[in-house]
């Protein structure tokens, strides 16, 4: 009962936040609404007792990817001024695509009701993953840490500007224009 309530609550929140995001014209507000949608999806996972997935959802999507979005928004001033296009043709095209996806989703959820519950899925948990990462794939895991570190250093080396600021804050840019 309480699980069902939680599922509906988080599911509803996710849907609501996504809808609000779609009709939001300010990119930062849209990003914040998307964050809300991602967090409620994490809640959904938690309600379905997929703790690892919930944690990964928060760490990866809500944490890393949203940060990336926000950083990208602050460093590309053009994105602030670019409002979504108002062309009616693209609107119709978008609505048509949305309709197709919606029908597919409805069909899928109808099919899922009759699908058998897989036992194996519920058993792939944190422990199994940890065993694989620190056992069989320990070497590759450590190697990946070097890859990530090298990427960070590479990004910093490429992005660091020599003396003069490469990116102007959006407010100044507007004044200059």
């Amino acid at each position: 009962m309480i699980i069902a309530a939680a599922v509906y609550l988080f599911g509803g929140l996710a849907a609501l936040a996504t809808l609000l995001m779609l009709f939001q014209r300010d990119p930062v507000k849209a990003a914040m609404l998307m964050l809300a949608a991602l967090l409620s999806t994490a809640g959904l996972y938690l309600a379905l007792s997929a703790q690892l997935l919930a944690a990964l959802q928060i760490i990866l999507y809500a944490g890393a990817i949203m940060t990336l979005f926000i950083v990208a928004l602050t460093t590309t001033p053009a994105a602030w001024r670019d409002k979504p296009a108002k062309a009616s043709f693209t609107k119709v095209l978008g609505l048509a695509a949305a309709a197709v996806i919606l029908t597919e989703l409805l069909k899928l959820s109808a099919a899922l009701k009759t699908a058998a519950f897989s036992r194996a899925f519920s058993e792939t948990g944190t422990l199994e993953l940890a065993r694989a990462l620190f056992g069989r794939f320990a070497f590759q895991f450590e190697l990946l840490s070097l890859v990530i570190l090298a990427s960070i250093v590479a990004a910093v080396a490429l992005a660091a500007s020599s003396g003069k600021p490469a990116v102007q804050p959006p407010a100044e840019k507007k004044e200059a224009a």
Partner: protein
Amino acid sequence: MIQEPLSYAASALSGPLLLVLAAFACLLLPLFFRQLRGTQGLIALGATLVAITFYRKAPPAEFSFFCGALLLSPLSAYLWAFALAVLALVLVLSIARPAAPEESQGEYYFLLFMAATGLMVLVAAGDLFTAFIALELLSLPLYALAGIRRSKPGLEAAYKYFMLGAFGSGMTVMGIAILNALYPALTFTALKTGPAQPLALAGFLLVISGFAFKTALVPFHMWVPDAYEGAPTQVSAFMAASVKAGGVIVLWRLFSLFNGGPIHAIFWWLAVITVVSANFMALAQKGLKRLLAYSSVAHAGYLAVAFFGGQRGFEAVLYYLPVYAMATIGAFSVALLLEKDEKGPLIEDLAGLAKARPWLAGAMSAFMFSLAGVPPLAGFFAKFYAFSGAVNSGYTGLVVIAVLMSAVSIYYYLKVTVIMYMKPAAAERPAEAPGMIEAVIFLLAAGVILAGLFSRPLLILAAEASRWF
């Protein structure tokens, strides 16, 4: 003589670990100790020389570590020695003429070390998954190194290299995912014994395309000319020597999983298209670095021809890699010495070099003739062994094409020499005192000549290593 696999592994693995440590030292120490700033190159070179000094000959056995992820054998030892030597040469070039701006010196050496570590793991990788991660560790730093000067051609090179490289990586991952779904394990030995499946072919094709991107086989070569031209010349030299070696070893491992069949037919076509188109495209090049880039693509094709020679072919590949690396690093060093801007000298700029600096022109001719495959230089024997293996296995048609195209390549290599010796200089060359770059050039020229005149020692080493495949 070391008997225990563990004690050998400890001594062998300390090489790459030392490189990782040195990378951190180059990156972090100058941040804390002001007086160490500007000495990163020396720290890096010192660490590499220590790694070379403590290099040990591998016992004649293959040890598998980390559930088959890493294979240590005389083969890996041979290729690690190759990687360390390439790294040391590039470090000397970078110290003599810094490739990175003052404030990015630490990052430059860090990334170079990471790429070298990636190469070392890549050539010793026992499964596809490890090979992929190692390939990323090799490529990601190189994307950034190509644009480390943050100048327009450098960033363009980095961008193109990154975009196409990411595309290649995506294909590899997709292929690995397919193979992972079909086979219980991704080690090369398990893949070899696994049953043939139609979907597996798609997986192998994707993986091969991904590695062909890095090895720069046509039609996956688009990034090469721009990346080699725009990147700092020291980095181009490293790319030409190391990325090719890593890609070729993994491609060979994939190639030898099959006995004939569609995969070999695809390699046949890749080799033919590569040698033909790369040599013709090289004819029209005006820039020296661009010429060397197309030459690098052509040599990837010759290496693919060598695959068809079976065990003898692999022996030839192992002999070919250091010989090619010597000639190409040498030629890039000459380009580095003469360059005035980022894109390197034009071939025309070499005019009158024979008069102004006869020794330098002589060394450059040695590199060019070695790349062209003129006896008695090492390049001739490399091509000879590579092609003779394929002929012995009955691929005469392929070898005929490769030899014909090799004859075409003599034209553009000879053009460089003719311009150096026959054309008068447009402007008077300022006399320069010889420095470390010249030392590298003459060392490599001596290497190219001696490895040709006395090809036995290197060939014996290559043959010994190839047995442990």
